[in-house]
């Protein structure tokens, strides 16, 4: 071991050769940089960055789709795009923004932050984590591949992008009404994304519950980590409902069942129930992590601990729990009967209480603080204001009879964009700005950050505030075009101009980030004088996160450390010694198999979607159905999983030299 120590001064590129694995087809990848390192990584930070990068790309694509929608609606009787394309656009805009932008952005932050905030070196199951990522990519591909049909006649077979709306109400999704492949791909794409989310969430549940550093009791967890935990629970408990619903549509479409086929005695309304049993918790899945970011950012810039921590945590849990009992508020117009309608209306209103508690506590955090209006803080404050407005229109919807006039109008569009953009997205933009220095080691210029904030803030309100009035004035949503005599012309024009402004704002925001990545001022490890553990380690964090697993003594662990320096330094030194005597810092090995099994899934799912179609390659029919390829995909996946199981977690050790150098070693100890 001493030899190993001497030989491998860790320079980022040099590393110990992998032990000749006994149960392995491929040599275990060990690259630390370059393409292979990203494809085979199990490092939660790299995985987080990949999630984040993909999500931002999809956010921009979803935004572009929104801009096309807004352009079409700019003037009455516009024919900028066709009805068909419009329907594809709003379906994919909604699906993309929710499943491919906001959810993975949250997943990115779970990955980047949770292990560090709990004082761990990685998640509980690093390879499973990589698997979640690649499976997510597969889902994203399946959902979007249909766009290709718009680019070339040879690709018409995709039938266009999905066009049944983001909640795909049966029976519009049946073969009779949407016979083309797009709906099959939508069904399977969502299914695959669900798989990814469930697997990832299980991982985070175990990580948060089991991998906490010594002293980090549950009631000392950073609020963001708490919200990650609640969100993960919501995911594993809500996604099964839609998974089953999707299986049922898939069976209806491909195997002749009649779950939602009236001709066989099915009841399409069941789809709505199953969808919203998932769908409502889903919106809290989107908003709870943002509430977590804000709960970290506000105390940092108010330089005060979060007001009423236990109640904030508890209300987060309560929101999650009550969120499972309100799904039918999306179905007030489906004639559920008075008792059911009243019950769901009241339950929905009840959610305003724990949500209000959070707002009050954030204000309590500001009260008596020393507020520094840095850019993340401005987005966080913007979040409070805008989310509050969105929440109020939510409560208006909860009044069921009033909702009969609002359901499926632009009033709903206004409501959920206020909570989704004013809420979730603002908080995400705050978070990106806040943690950018941590993960890229560079500061984002304040001035340009603020410019982008104001552009986004003003643009957002110009876009969506008028929509309340459009809705009240009777403008239905999912409207490809409208007449000029409805009184909607000006509101729409205004909203569209606002959307362009918003687009410029978003563009500025990301352009500034890219600029800062190359040219930003180098950030120290703790540029904001922040409070949680991630700020205790270098920026960007080393692969093993912590030289010594910290011992947590208080809620804002790093704040405490900063104010008890000597005591902590002593403790740390001891920990480092103890760990080295146990063989050094244990790190998991990289692996090809998560990627391979996801690849198998892609092949399998893509072909399964069109299982009954003849398989045509280069104009020749190769097989009567896609079954052989679907099976091939399945076999690749299972084989990869099998080899994955045999390969074992592997692992190597890092050793911290006295000069701060890190060395690597392999082999048993």
């Amino acid at each position, binding site marked *: 071991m001493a030899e190993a120590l001497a030989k491998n001064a860790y320079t980022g590129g040099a590393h110990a050769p992998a032990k000749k694995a006994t149960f392995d087809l491929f040599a275990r990848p060990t690259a630390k940089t370059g393409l292979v390192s990203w494809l085979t990584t199990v490092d939660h930070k790299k995985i987080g960055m990949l999630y984040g990068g993909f999500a931002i790309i999809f956010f921009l694509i979803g935004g572009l789709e929104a801009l096309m929608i807004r352009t079409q609606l700019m003037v009455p009787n516009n024919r900028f795009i066709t009805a068909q394309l419009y329907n594809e656009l709003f379906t994919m805009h909604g699906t993309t923004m929710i499943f491919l932008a906001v959810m993975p952005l949250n997943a990115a932050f779970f990955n980047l932050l949770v292990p560090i905030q709990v004082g761990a070196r990685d998640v509980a199951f690093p390879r499973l984590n990589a698997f979640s990522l690649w499976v997510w990519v597969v889902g994203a591909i399946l959902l979007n591949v249909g766009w290709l049909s718009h680019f070339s006649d040879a690709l018409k077979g995709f039938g266009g992008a999905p066009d049944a709306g983001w909640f795909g109400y049966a029976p519009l999704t049946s073969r*009779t009404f949407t016979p083309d492949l797009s709906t099959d791909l939508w069904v399977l794409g969502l299914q695959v994304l669900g798989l990814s989310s469930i697997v990832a969430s299980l991982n985070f549940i175990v990580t948060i*519950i089991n991998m906490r550093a010594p002293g980090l009791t549950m009631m000392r967890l950073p609020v963001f980590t708490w919200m990650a935990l609640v969100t993960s629970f919501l995911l594993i408990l809500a996604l099964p*409902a839609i998974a089953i619903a999707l299986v049922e549509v898939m069976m209806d479409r491909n195997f002749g069942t009649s779950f939602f086929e*009236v001709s066989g005695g099915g*009841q399409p309304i069941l789809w709505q129930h199953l969808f919203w*049993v998932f769908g409502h918790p889903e919106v809290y899945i989107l908003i709870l992590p943002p509430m977590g970011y804000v709960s970290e950012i506000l105390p940092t810039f108010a330089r005060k601990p979060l007001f009423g921590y236990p109640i904030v945590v508890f209300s987060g849990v309560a929101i999650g729990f009550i969120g*499972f009992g309100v799904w039918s508020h999306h179905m007030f117009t489906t004639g*559920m009967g008075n008792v*059911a309608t009243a019950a769901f209306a009241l339950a929905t209103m009840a959610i305003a209480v724990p949500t209000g508690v959070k707002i009050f506590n954030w204000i309590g955090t500001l009260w008596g603080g020393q507020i520094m209006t840095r850019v993340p803080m401005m987005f966080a404050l913007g979040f409070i204001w805008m989310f509050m407005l969105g929440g109020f229109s939510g409560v208006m919807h909860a009044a069921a009879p009033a909702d009969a006039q609002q359901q499926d109008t632009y009033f709903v569009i206004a409501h959920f964009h206020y909570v989704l953009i004013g809420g979730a997205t603002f908080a995400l933009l705050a978070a990106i700005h806040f943690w950018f220095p941590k993960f890229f080691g560079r500061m984002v210029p304040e001035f340009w950050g603020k410019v982008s904030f104001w552009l986004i803030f003003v643009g957002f309100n110009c876009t969506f505030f008028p929509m309340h009035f459009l809705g009240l004035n009777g403008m239905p949503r999912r409207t490809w075009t409208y007449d000029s005599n409805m009184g909607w012309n000006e509101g729409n024009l205004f909203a569209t101009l606002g959307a362009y402004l918003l687009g410029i704002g978003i563009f500025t925001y990301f352009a500034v980030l890219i600029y800062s990545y190359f040219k930003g001022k180098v950030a120290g490890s703790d540029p904001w004088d922040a409070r949680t553990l991630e700020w205790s380690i270098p920026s960007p964090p080393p692969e093993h996160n912590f030289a010594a697993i910290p011992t947590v003594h208080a809620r804002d662990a790093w704040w405490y450390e900063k104010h008890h320096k000597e005591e902590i330094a002593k403790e740390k030194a001891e920990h480092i010694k103890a760990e080295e005597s146990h063989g050094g810092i244990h790190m998991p090995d990289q692996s090809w198999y998560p990627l391979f099994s996801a690849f198998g899934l892609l092949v399998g799912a893509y072909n399964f979607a069109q299982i009954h179609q003849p398989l045509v390659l280069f104009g020749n029919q190769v097989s009567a159905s896609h079954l052989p390829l679907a099976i091939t995909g399945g076999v690749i996946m299972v084989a990869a999983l099998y080899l994955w199981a045999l390969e074992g977690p592997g692992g190597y050790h890092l050793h911290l030299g006295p000069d701060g150098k890190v060395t690597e070693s392999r082999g048993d100890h």
Partner: protein
Amino acid sequence: MSALTAAGHHEPSKFHFYIQVAMILSVVTGIEVVLVYLPLPKWFVVTSLLTLSAGKFMAVIFYFMHLRWDKVFCTILFFIGLVLAGGTMWALLHLFAADASKPLTAAALEMARLAVA
């Protein structure tokens, strides 16, 4: 590993205990099957069936899956899922049992046939 075995930190064997549990479970299953054929009031049979299977359920999770000997947290974790799933099922059944939800079936089938025509 041999050192471990020597250290003798073994579980006490639950072999016979497990067998007893399994026997009880089989007997209960038998009772269930017989119950449905007995000329008893319907409410009684339904209640007993539900109680008996709930009992079996609990026996399996607490003994075979050793929740009884594990940290309570495992129990809590599982019951979160169980309670939510049960609650959702309960709500769905009530929603569909409501008068407003009586399907039109016969008429609807007719319409569906027209639509296809």
